């Protein structure tokens, strides 16, 4: 059970990543690989600041801003120099690898003895219900501090979702959505689409970096490799969310990304429990996204095929 609660919590932390991917891929139609680098960038920035004694909340905020900066660079490279979005993302992701090593000064930075957002909550739990307190949830014996962590993550994610929902319904947020939907139209209505794309990719990577910073604090270390495959991971979450929610309203798609992230993490945890080799995780994630991407097309073909058969009969 504590495995499930842990997966749930990590799923919520990674929901921030999914939200970032949702913003770049779905709102801006911008296939942004920067995420792979900015996830680690957030983790590295957050971890280094925490080790340097900075307040973990402030460190997480700086990680968010660092991610925004990385995203802004990608957006700038794309809009200013007309470089294809994928390539712009790859350039920044590659450059970030070196940056991350410099930020941490090594390839792995442990946080186990540091004060993080999550040790605060554990401390809070100890203060309230004592050391090693346990309780029963639906007949399962779980640690009280795990529940507090889960609650904290749930509330934080809810707040972030509400902020995003609100933002994308303001005048400027609406213009951003229109930029992804029909840039010619929104330019004709006086919006600088380049600025919108830069800002949008920046916000997206801010969320991705924050996700990295929080994950580093939760798992107790930052690693220069931890961003690898994260973009596809986030995309898988977004796709699962869309399949489950099946509603195009803004609030529901944001909610879907969160649900997708949690569910995907739970599925993976269960698969690993059943003996899935962790080394195979990335190829399975990639296959999953591949299938999810081609499935709608396949179903359409099948329908067409059925129709032609009916017509011939």
């Amino acid at each position, binding site marked *: 059970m504590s495995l499930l609660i842990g997966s749930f919590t990590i799923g919520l932390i990674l929901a921030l990543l999914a939200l970032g991917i949702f913003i770049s891929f779905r709102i801006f139609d911008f296939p942004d690989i920067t995420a792979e680098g900015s996830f680690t960038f957030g983790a590295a920035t957050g971890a280094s600041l925490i080790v340097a004694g900075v307040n973990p909340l402030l460190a997480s905020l700086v990680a968010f801003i660092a991610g925004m900066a990385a995203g802004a660079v990608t957006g700038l490279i794309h809009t200013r120099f007309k470089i294809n979005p994928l390539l712009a993302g790859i350039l920044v992701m590659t450059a970030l690898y070196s940056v991350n090593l410099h930020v941490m000064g090594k390839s792995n930075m442990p946080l186990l003895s540091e004060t993080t957002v999550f040790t605060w909550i554990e401390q809070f739990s100890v203060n309230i219900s004592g050391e090693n307190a346990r309780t029963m949830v639906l007949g399962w014996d779980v640690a009280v501090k795990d529940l507090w962590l889960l609650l904290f993550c749930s509330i934080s994610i809810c707040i972030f979702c509400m902020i995003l929902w609100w933002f994308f*319904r303001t*005048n400027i947020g609406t*213009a951003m959505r*229109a930029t992804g*939907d029909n840039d010619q139209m929104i330019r*004709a*209505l006086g919006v*600088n*689409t380049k600025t919108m794309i830069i800002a949008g990719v920046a916000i997206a990577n801010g969320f991705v970096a924050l996700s990295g910073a929080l994950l580093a604090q939760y798992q107790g270390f930052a690693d220069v490799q931890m961003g690898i495959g994260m973009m596809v991971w986030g995309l898988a979450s977004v796709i699962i969310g869309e399949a489950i929610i099946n509603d*195009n309203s803004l609030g529901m798609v944001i909610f879907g990304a969160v649900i997708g992230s949690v569910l995907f993490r739970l599925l993976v945890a269960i698969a690993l429990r059943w003996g899935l080799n962790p080394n195979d995780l990335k190829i399975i994630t990639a296959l999953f996204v591949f299938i999810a991407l081609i499935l709608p097309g396949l179903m359409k073909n099948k329908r067409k095929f059925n129709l032609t058969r009916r017509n011939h009969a």
Partner: protein
Amino acid sequence: MLKINNIKKTFNPETVNEVKALRSVNLEIDEGSFVCVLGTNGSGKSTMLNAVAGTFMIDEGDVLLDNTNITKWSEHKRAQLIGRVFQNPFSGTAPNMSIQENLALAFKRGQKRGLGWGLPKNKLDEFKTIVRPLNMGLEDRLENPIGKLSGGQRQALTLLMATALKPKLLLLDEHTAALDPKTASKVIELTEKIITRDRLTTLMVTHSMQQAVNLGDRIIMMHKGQVAYDFKGEEKKRLKVNDLLALFDELRRKDNIDQGVAEMLKEQYV
């Protein structure tokens, strides 16, 4: 009002695909004038409108609108002054956003967009009032995505959006060409209504000579990236479709002679 001074535009210069789309276009349009632009395919009508709207930077010349030189202005900045409707019904609206969101975007054309609520409650009634006269039943479907509407409905909405805030200049580029004849005439009717009501300075490209004869107070005919003919005032009023057809024929004959001469010269000198 609008002043186009000797503008030139060459696409893909110094390549095999070089196209001299505009070779020295000069045009001056008075405030409140409604100009129909005719011309064969590829004569540079769209390019001229795009040059005014700032879709690309021109090679030479100046564009002045409302006594301001906007030659160096970006496309989105010019949108403060210019409303547009494109030929393709898909171009003018954001398909996955609702009708009301599209309208709300249009009511902020060229203005600062901040953190204010994008869909203010008090605007919804106004949206209903402006779409009701279309008689398309859209007032009850404001929350539906625009992508679900027909081409004609989308063009009608795009027209409302382009003129929601009165533009200094309205640019219409064959905005009924993709519609079936019945829908097209409805959209043209609406176009005329709005232009007359708001006394909009308008440049309307059309492939229909009938439209050009019926509408507006001036006709210009483009040919090979230049303004070949220009009719206004009484002259425009007297103009009939047959006169325009004759002019097209004349242009075609001239072209053939030019080609003939070119071939003759080639034979003699090569």
